[in-house]
């Protein structure tokens, strides 16, 4: 039992470390146009949000024609933002699902 406990603990620590390494070393592609979007890629989009719409299921806006969606309902200031997220495809086309939204300094 102690052997099993130790082996499973070491295994999960090693694998968690590897997954963390994958997350931090993942290439972040800076995109500025709709054409550059590849589904599932990790992207960074920067610019002024336009057509901001809030709804019960989150927030939607555009940066240079790229549709951004975020689940959290947060008010955006009238300033340039940096969005990091994934490119997704759904019924209504292709868009970036935001994981992190921050203000450009």
């Amino acid at each position: 039992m102690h052997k099993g406990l130790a082996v499973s603990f070491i295994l999960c620590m090693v694998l968690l470390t590897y997954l963390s390494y994958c997350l931090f070393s993942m290439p972040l592609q800076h995109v500025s146009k709709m054409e550059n979007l590849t589904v599932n890629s990790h992207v960074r989009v920067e610019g002024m949000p336009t057509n901001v719409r809030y709804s019960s299921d989150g927030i939607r806006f555009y940066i240079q024609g790229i549709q951004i969606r975020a689940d959290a309902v947060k008010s955006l200031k009238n300033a340039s933002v940096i969005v990091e997220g994934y490119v997704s495809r759904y019924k209504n086309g292709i868009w970036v699902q935001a994981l992190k939204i921050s203000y450009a300094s």
Partner: protein
Amino acid sequence: MLLEISLIIAALIAGMLTGIFTGLLPGIHINLIASLVLIFALQHTVLSLPLATFIVSLSFTHIIIDFIPTTLLGVPSEENFLSVIPAHHLVKKGEGYEAIRIAFLGILFSIPLIVLSMPLYILFLPKVYHVIESVIPYALVASSLYVIFREKDFVAGAIVFMLAGILGYLTFQLPIKESLLPLLTGLFGLSSLFSSLEQDEKIIKQKLKVKLPPNKHFIRSLLPAFIITPLCSFFPGIGSGHISFFCSEIKEQDSKQFIFLNGLVASMNMALSIVAAYSISRTRSGTAVAVEVLLYPFSLKELLMLMIVCIATIVVMYYIGKCIATTLIRFYNIIPHQKITFITIVFVILINVLMTDSLGFIVLAASTAVGIFAHFLGVRKIQLMGALLLPTMIYYFM
């Protein structure tokens, strides 16, 4: 009109048949089928209602049939992992069939509770949800702490919760194909299968002639389920396991009552997640997401239609499920347990190889290791739900 009704009936039957398949095969989750149906729906928008019928029928059939491998093989899903120990206790006494029948009875008893809760959800939830929404993150923290501190060794419970939580967070942040599949399969399915390999190889004959306890034995499970399930079912990260746990904290349940309660709550939770998609546009299950996307904008008529589908599926599958369980127990009584477990492990790994990518496979290995670690520590499987709860909390607080 006639064509539409025919299509809906065909979808209902197809959903049941697919649900039998997904329910019997460990590792196949409803969300996976729901996402495949959504991909199909992108090209066939005219079939929205039959496709939604298919998903609802499949989901309820899956919940019912899923109790058979959960009981016999000890391979739970994230919905019924808490019923594994009481069910296994009955399997050891040769009463596995009785455990399955009790779970089915619980699902059947969920029908009146679903019918009673539905108007409450439609009328009151939209009015109070904005208040509830503000307390969701605190409620998640409080419920997680409560579950951790109710553990005999709460330090071990906290370690498992955190490990599962970190794994869940990494899984959702990385671009992994069908990320929930390897995460939940490893935490609840593969880890249980590997753990059960160390058991005795002796076949325990399961009795097929059983006399179920009288219905009044289960009455005490109904009230807590009716109160707690509607309150918790729209909380993100809180599944049937947590709800059953909280219900059993209100009124103590014996093994059979707990299995009944788990069946009741799993079915009621699924139905209410669909009602919540209609009333507050919040989707807390893969089924609800698929239904909302397919039927957007979701009308009351369509919701009622889907609830009829849900009730019809439960009633039909209650009887078909009993026949399937009887047949499988006949095989179970002659095939060595370890052989079945080994075949199931190979099958589950194969499904993951086919459905996910290389990173997903790493997640499968990590989640299996976390599940086995929890098993060796003697920590209850409910702590593994940290994989969904911790990322949800991070999302709300950051």
